[in-house]
């Protein structure tokens, strides 16, 4: 129920922020609609719908069923771990280049998800990072951030 309320409030917040953004745009007239014409229609409908939804959620009777505590702890670890990895990856990519950042991200996820002992995770993530670079950069020609490791791999290919 707490999740329901948080999401409802979040959606209402987004609707309000979107409406505020609309106010900066020229509305125009029916004869000559401006850039804010369509967004304003959406904003009005969105605020109305999210307000009704929030009201419904807050006036609904609460249910008191919750999952067992043990599983919740395990689940939270996996969820938070993966989410952090996904958010951290772009930051790592900017500073560590492709192979190292990919290796670090995959290794972290494998450890968080308790794949195997850490040396196995280390080897799997190293192989994944290099294989990924070979497929994307060398075979498909994607311009990935490259440093000395990537240059070394390019040189190996000749």
């Amino acid at each position, binding site marked *: 129920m707490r*999740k329901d309320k*948080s*999401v*409802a409030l*979040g*959606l209402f917040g987004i609707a309000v922020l*979107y409406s505020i*953004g609309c106010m900066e*745009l*020229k509305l125009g*007239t*029916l*004869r*000559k*609609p*401006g*850039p804010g*014409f*369509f*967004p304003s229609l*959406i*904003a009005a*409908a*969105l605020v109305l*719908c999210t307000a*009704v*939804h929030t009201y*419904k959620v807050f006036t609904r009777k609460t249910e008191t069923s919750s999952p067992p505590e043990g*599983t919740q702890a*395990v*689940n*939270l670890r*996996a*969820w938070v771990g*993966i*989410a952090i990895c*996904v*958010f951290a*990856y*772009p930051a790592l*990519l*900017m500073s560590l280049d492709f192979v190292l950042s*990919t290796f670090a*991200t*995959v290794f972290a*996820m*494998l450890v968080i*998800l*308790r*794949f195997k002992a850490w040396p196995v995770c280390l080897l*799997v*993530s190293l192989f*994944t990072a290099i294989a*990924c670079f070979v497929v*994307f950069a060398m075979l*498909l*020609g*994607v*311009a*990935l951030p490259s440093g000395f490791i990537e240059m070394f791999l390019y040189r190996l290919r000749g």
Partner: protein
Amino acid sequence: MEVWQSLAHGFSVALLPGNLFFALVGAVVGTITGILPGIGPLGAMAILLSFTLYMDATTAMIFFAGIYYGAMYGGSTTSILLRIPGEAASVVTCLDGYEMAKKGRAGAALTISAVGSFVAGNISILGLMVAAPLLGKIALKFGPPEFVAIGLCGLIILVRLEEGSVLQSTIMILLGLGISTVGTDYLSGSLRFTLHSEQLAQGLDLLPVAMGLFGIAEVLDTATRAQGENRVIKVKLRELLPSGREWQRSVSPIFRGSFLGFLIGLIPGPSPVISTFVSYVTEKKLSKHPEEFGKGAIEGVAGPESANNSAVGGAYVPLMALGIPFTPAMAMVLGALMLHNITPGPNMIQQKPDLFWGVIAAMYMGNFMLVLLNLPMVNLFVGILRIPKPILFPIIVLLCLVGVYSVNASYVDLFAMALFGVIGYALREVGFKPAPLILAMVIGPMIENSLRQALLISGGELAPLVLRPICLTLYSLAFCGVVAPWVLKKWRSGRSRPANPLTGNKQNKVMR
């Protein structure tokens, strides 16, 4: 005659080694994603959208058609052998497919499902061949008001048909429309909701949003759930042949399912899913043995499995003829076309015959490949479910991350994907379905531009936007589509109220 010549030309395109290879890869990838619960054709397309950048447009379409059909085949395999629907369109197959498997008829169920899918796929492609060019010719007469009407009616019907509450679907659609307005306004050149970011001036790409909402959110969702061991029923090759009676009982459901599926595929919404339910109910009503349904009736497998494959062909019609995706998966196909600067629509069939007829021919081949692949290799495909999740998840996440980065080399896209991943997870947790958001995001710019053009042309008059014959017909149909089920429900509940034994009046509340 012209159709057959064009189809022959299509085969000459589809039989090129590169296209043939990607049809096969698409079929295999589709089957795998159909088998893996959760990912489904939409997730697979979202994850692999960036790969299509390195193919030409025709190959990309062939690849995606293979994925879509393959997912429908793969989903049925796990439904029959494990009672796990790989994707939503296979839920109904679990009811009788798994019961058949428990009785030792898994092979027969799989064969009927594959043959039904093959027949239905071919019938729907035939429908697509005939309907899309016809609709395309009619659509050449469409102006901005008609496109507004098609877009709006599509979204209205989608709200009605999408599972979950109407309010939730409406919110998702409005959010999608809102996201589509981010970036530069094409008519005035003004910047909207860009937060002074240069990268947001180009708007939010479909790719990071779709990959976040489907790829990352799916991983987050599945990772948090407890994993159980899957017990797979093994199938031997000699057990694959159905008996004469099973064949006989399956013929009519296969053809009925094919026609129903194609027609339902033309309607906006999750048509493959709806078609399976409609087909199942129809077969149960028409069957001489309705009591066997739910206990292993072959009709309960043949009809729905044919219907969901046929709906795929139907769903391609509005996309190819009008350039409007009516299902979220078609929005992905449109996204792949847009990556190649191709906007499908009424002119595409004439201007890009290679693309249209190449895809049609590839669909025939894809169907053929899937029958050949799926039956003998069924045990191998099901074995994929034994891959441990801790290794599968990092690979999916990595594919999403690298896939998004590879399109624009943009860190903003990566952050956007991560953000939409978390948002998608939160929305799923409370019962919101993100598919309408994607569809609205894709249709949004068309609706907005057409609406503004229509208002400019009409001088601000609203009547021409509604009263033109096609518009009026479409709005009336949408109105009926929304109101009719509600009226029907009220009427039925009115009839089912029992009479008060003392007064003879009908009671307002159902008696316990």
